């Protein structure tokens, strides 16, 4: 009897132990899984996470209409359509990839080498330095607000970030990688495998990292770089004390039809996303750049370049497609020195009609520079990762 009770009792204890054991094991498992979460599950600032785990852009310009839905106009005009809807994990994975030199053939360059957050996501060079420090042909464009742009590169030859990034990644003179090498390297790093699994939860378990996942993650991160909270924006939203008298004077020169800056650098993005032949000079020793003529196979676009956004322009000297102007002052002065004054003698360019002889005074040029500096806002600058899955040092 007592033996029976003992057996019963011990079996109950046993069952309980087994139960507890399995319970803890399973709990441990889930804890291990929690620890494995490597990517941020919150959207970056400027985005709200929806029920589908997508980050949707949110900003004060969404209060306004936009003429013909194009995101060009005046102070209180909505922005162009944005590329958003990436998951927070994809954005965060993109951040690691963006700063990781493992993406280049010899592990020496990352995206951030030419798009350094400390330099307005540009590099401070007239023209960028590529593989083995060789001088490239054009300046690195800023990536701030790139999610709003429909055409990429100075000559507009790419229509998506995914398409765009493949050129620097696999160009012999830029990051000098190959698709095979990139995949082999990333697939050999366990932490990246885990991160990609987190960022792309719908794919088959243990599947390898794929190129389009790499592209999508980097595009997700780039699309998260939003700068819409400058002093100018405060003015635009109705707080007129945000700008001082000099800056307001500069703004009025900027949007006047004498200087005509706002005709192409149209608010709120400060670009109308068109192509314009303005006839800026190349720095010494650099050949004339035909620009968008090549992209569109159209000789009337010889010397045309995409109108760049001016947001955070203060941070991205030197200026123009090949960095000929060291300062904003020199840059604004170019526009008042005469239509086509810097065009090489042997070139016959169709200069844009807004390039004329506005005869701006030195005082007006100074005010323009004052105004351009009110377009600075880096409050949403992302953090550079302290360590990278590749074990390499984040390179900027």
């Amino acid at each position: 009897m007592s033996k029976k009770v003992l057996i019963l009792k011990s079996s109950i204890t046993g069952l309980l132990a087994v139960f507890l054991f399995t319970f803890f094991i399973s709990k441990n498992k889930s804890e291990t899984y929690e620890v494995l979460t490597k990517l941020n599950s919150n959207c970056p600032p400027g985005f709200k996470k929806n029920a589908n785990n997508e980050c949707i852009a949110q900003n004060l310009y969404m209060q306004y209409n936009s003429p013909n839905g194009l995101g060009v106009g005046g102070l209180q005009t909505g922005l162009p359509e944005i590329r958003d809807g990436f998951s927070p994990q994809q954005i965060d994975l993109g951040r690691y990839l963006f700063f990781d030199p493992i993406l280049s053939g010899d592990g020496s360059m990352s995206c951030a080498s030419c798009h350094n957050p400390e330099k307005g996501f540009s590099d401070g060079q007239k023209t960028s330095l590529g593989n083995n420090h060789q001088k490239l042909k054009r300046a690195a464009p800023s990536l701030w607000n790139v999610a709003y742009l429909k055409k990429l590169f100075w000559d507009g030859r790419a229509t998506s970030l995914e398409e765009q990034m493949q050129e620097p990644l696999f160009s012999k003179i830029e990051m000098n990688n190959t698709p095979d090498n990139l995949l082999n390297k990333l697939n050999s790093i366990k932490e990246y495998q885990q991160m990609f699994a987190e960022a792309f939860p719908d794919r088959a378990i243990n599947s390898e990292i794929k190129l389009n996942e790499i592209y999508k993650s980097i595009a997700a991160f780039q699309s998260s770089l939003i700068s819409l909270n400058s002093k100018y924006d405060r003015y635009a939203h109705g707080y007129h004390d945000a700008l001082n008298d000099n800056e307001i004077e500069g703004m009025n020169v900027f949007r006047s039809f004498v200087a005509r800056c706002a005709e192409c650098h149209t608010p709120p993005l400060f670009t109308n996303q068109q192509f314009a032949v303005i006839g800026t000079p190349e720095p010494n020793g650099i050949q004339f750049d035909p620009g968008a003529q090549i992209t569109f196979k159209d000789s009337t676009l010889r010397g045309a370049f995409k109108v760049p956004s001016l947001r955070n322009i203060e941070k991205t000297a030197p200026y123009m497609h090949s960095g000929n102007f060291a300062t904003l002052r020199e840059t604004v002065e170019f526009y008042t020195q005469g239509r086509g004054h810097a065009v090489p003698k042997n070139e016959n360019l169709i200069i844009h009609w807004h390039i004329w002889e506005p005869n701006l005074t030195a005082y007006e040029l100074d005010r323009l520079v004052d105004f351009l500096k009110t377009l600075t806002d880096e409050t949403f600058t992302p953090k550079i990762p302290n360590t990278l899955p590749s074990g390499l040092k984040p390179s900027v």
Partner: protein
Amino acid sequence: MKSTVIKFIGAILLLCIGIFIGKSFFRSSTETAVPMPSGMTYRSTGASNDTTQVLKSNSFNGEIIEVKKGNSIQEAVKKANPGDLIRVYPGNYSENVFIDKDDISLQGVVINGKWPTLDGKKEINDAFLYSGNGILIENFKIINYKGNAIMGQAGNNFIIRNNWIIDTGVYGIFPQYGKNGLIEHNVLSQIADAAIYVGMCDNVDVRHNEVFDNVAGIEIENSRHCLVENNYAHNNTGGLLAFVTPGLPIKTTFDVILRNNFVVNNNHENFGAPGSTVAGIPAGTGILIMAADDVIVENNIITGNNNTGITIVDLATGDPKANDPNSEGNPDRVTILDNIMFDNGNNPTGEIKTIMLTQLDSNGPDIFAYGGGTGSTIRNKNRYRTFGIADYGTAQINDTKDILTMMTPKPVPPRSVSKEEIGELTYYGVCAGCHAFGTRLIGPPTEIIQAIHNDNPQGIVDYITKPKNLRDDYPEMPPQDYLSDEAKMAVAEYILSIKH
């Protein structure tokens, strides 16, 4: 003898007193006749067959701010709130007035033929620059600016009328990116580009204006739904223009009616700036339609234009600019109804002269078409001397009398945004740079803010307006006083409502 002299002097004295009393009586009566603050009215000819009917969209309950000689119009604009009327009295005002507010009316007061005059002295860029909606500018004389007399950027529901504009640089009246506007009863001359330039706009009426001695009289460019009616365009290089300029973000011009205008003797020498679109317009151009679609030309008097009465061309022919792959360059579905045309083409120039000589004609035609385009039609083709319209069919309509206006039946409303949405946009668009749920960014996590200000949105409003650093472990918050009171309360309530 003496009494006659006294009588005579007395009579003159009486007469003088009479004149004095009469003059002061009538003067005071003109001064007291304060016109209604008409900026508050909304003219909607489309709602009724009575084109003079004026419908009030708002009752006027704003302040009236008066600006007298020696004071600044801009200072008045600074003081003004939406709904206010600024009345400017005669005098010279050399300033650049910019209006970055909604629903402001600026009204000149003309007394005894003396106008409030904005004089740019060829030093100041623009007289009026506005970005707000619901702007009215009327009764000003504007002279000697470098850029524009009146330029709008993305302001809807504008009214610009009764202004007298001479030599204000590139353009006279230039609304850009605006929807629903009225430009009427203005007189403009000596403008180096277009006197009235409707650029990248929608739903604009241009009526009863006189434009002369300009390079271009009235120009509808990359705009849709425009009515150009009852204007007198004379002695410009080109009278009325409807066209597409390539390389602009808004790519089309269509649905334009040019009706009941006088387009007479537009033979002024072209003094447009080199490189500008209008610099290529040959002197003697009455009406120019370039790449614009669905343009109707009706009941105009088009005479004495030495090159052609109406020129219809594609971009490739008319405008040697850099190409735009997204601009469609052919003028399609142009409709020419009844017009009075004679005495055009007496002295053709350039290509048109060459082309006409191939026809053994030394005169330019009433209607000249060249280049691409399909679907165009004309009523009573045989009436006119024409070139290049052999493929034009017979017009399917006789008139446009049912279209009284292109303006929208009601003012374009601002985008409606709820308080919750403003709160949400502000939280994610501004606050999220430093605050997030469950993590410390730069400032405290959102749930801590919720705990501190539980049920007290005003507490958040007060704090963000004037933060006081209460915590050593966090940096001091910069004041968010630039947010409107409405946005501050909206975001405070939103923060307290977020659940995670």
